[in-house]
């Protein structure tokens, strides 16, 4: 706890305060708080039904919380749709709904945000500046060191990991504030999972803070700067993966251990 004053100097990019979301009798979010610091990877872990998905949906605009506040760079924001959140620079990588399979990599990177030709063709017909889109697509992929032979191949010809790479590159290319990823490695094999982890690190190293939802504890402990443990619709604790064992984190997550029972060095 002695270094908490020092760490709170790090500016908060995204902050949620007391979010509540009810579905009929079910309370999915029960006054949850979340803090995302500049330049970090914050993992969110929790049992099934703990409210992880509801939490990130609220942050990405996919659902509107019943109560509570979301602050972006300290200013309150109200997202009514994912598009609102995107306009504010928050990009989300969805587990499997992210791409249009028959369209090319370059097209997928710019889907919904195409670069238009200057002049009458662009304004009247919204004609695409394909050359610029291709160049930018290559630049974005190189930026994250994603090796793909041709930007003109359909996404369906790629492996699962490469597809996820396209989705990550798209969000990294357009996010100005935050990248949120929901289980980005869940459907991947070991090698491809590691490739995507490496990619997430590069996104952070570009200066974009990342919120990562994952069930995969080894992945979480390998990559996260801090871990937000979600339990029963609330934040049970935020821990430092360097100072806590995997089994203790899981114990807190399942309720087998109270957060107060952790040593003070475990908290972050």
């Amino acid at each position, binding site marked *: 706890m002695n270094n908490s004053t020092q760490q709170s100097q790090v500016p908060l990019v995204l902050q949620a305060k007391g979010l509540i979301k009810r579905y009929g009798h079910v309370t999915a979010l029960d006054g949850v708080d979340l803090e995302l610091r500049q330049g970090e990877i914050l993992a969110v872990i929790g049992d099934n039904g703990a409210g992880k998905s509801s939490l990130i949906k609220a942050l990405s605009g996919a659902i509107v919380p019943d109560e509570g506040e979301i602050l972006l760079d300290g200013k309150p924001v109200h997202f009514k749709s994912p598009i609102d959140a995107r306009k504010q620079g928050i990009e989300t990588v969805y587990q499997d709904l992210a791409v*249009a399979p028959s*369209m090319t990599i370059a097209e997928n990177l710019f*889907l*919904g*945000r*195409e670069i238009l030709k200057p002049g009458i063709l662009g304004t009247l017909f*919204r004609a*695409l500046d394909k050359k610029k889109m291709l160049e930018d697509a290559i630049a974005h992929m190189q930026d994250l060191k994603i090796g793909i032979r041709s930007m003109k191949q359909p996404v*369906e010809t790629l492996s699962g990991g490469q597809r996820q790479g396209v989705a990550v590159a798209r969000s990294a290319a357009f996010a100005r504030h935050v990248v949120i990823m929901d289980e980005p490695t869940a459907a991947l094999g070991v090698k491809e999972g590691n490739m995507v982890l490496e990619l997430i690190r590069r996104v952070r190293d570009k200066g974009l803070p990342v919120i990562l939802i994952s069930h995969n504890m080894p992945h979480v402990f390998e990559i996260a700067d801090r871990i937000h443990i979600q339990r029963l619709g609330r934040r049970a604790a935020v821990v430092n993966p360097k100072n806590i064992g995997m089994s203790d984190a899981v114990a807190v997550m399942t309720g087998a251990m109270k957060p107060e029972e952790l040593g003070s060095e475990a908290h972050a």
Partner: protein
Amino acid sequence: MKKIFHQIATIPAAGAFLALAIACLFFSMQSDRFLSGQNFSLILQQVMVVGVMAIGQTLIILTAGIDLSCGMVMALSSIIMTKFFDAYGLNPYLSILCGLAVAMLFGWFNGMLVTRIKLPPFIVTLGTMNIAFAITQVYSGAQTVTNVPAALTFFGNTFHIGGTTLSYGTLLLVALYVFVWWFLRDTAPGRHVYAVGNSPEAARLTGIPTDRVLLWVYTIAGLFYGIAALLSVARTGVGDPQAGQTDNLDSITAVVLGGTSLFGGRGVVLGTLIGAVIVGVFRNGLTLMGVASVYQILVTGILVILAVATDQMSRKRG
């Protein structure tokens, strides 16, 4: 062999080209008259109406929809165009505009039912097909309109080039195809049609207004049915309430033969033009061979099932 088949199946327009080439080869061996320039301009005349309708059908099928109403909407539109002039003495150009507007209104109505009430396109257009048919019959009294002004038959006029006679309608057909091909390939709204057909949810999450895309696709498809109506009047010289009856299936056949997937999101509109020509070539070639028209219908039926089966198989492997 299997590999070659698979590769052809994955290049949408290539399969159609191959089928067309084989059909042409076959019919030219069966009849000397088949390969003449005169016969080809005849085929193009026949293809004109279904070809333009099939553009609208392609747009809709690319979004993973289907339109069963196109032939009946075309017939209604042609009756409006001719009867507004004939019965009320309306300026012929205004009559054309009214016909186009009614066709677009039907398209828009289809689009509203699909996007707002979330009804399946198959059912929606099955309904509007019958509505359009009934209105056409009631309004025309099932009578053919024969008093047609020159403005409505302009696209039936012909000019000579080489040994071939072409109509202005054929030029319009080709121009429309080239424009839509470019539009679908090189513009943002064009690519959004493919995105919506690929996965509406993914498209929505990337910020594409999917309902707006669907609504304009159905409305513009209506416009193409209206243009087809104008070409139909130009070709036959009358407003025919019985027109369009076989065009629903013929337009779908053209689209599928042209390599556009019924599952949406894949296909090239130029393939549809080839598909429409294939249908025309079969009809023409079989006629030259003296095959009765019932058997021609049989052949189109087999063609469409073959095309859909190819689509299905290439999807499973892809």
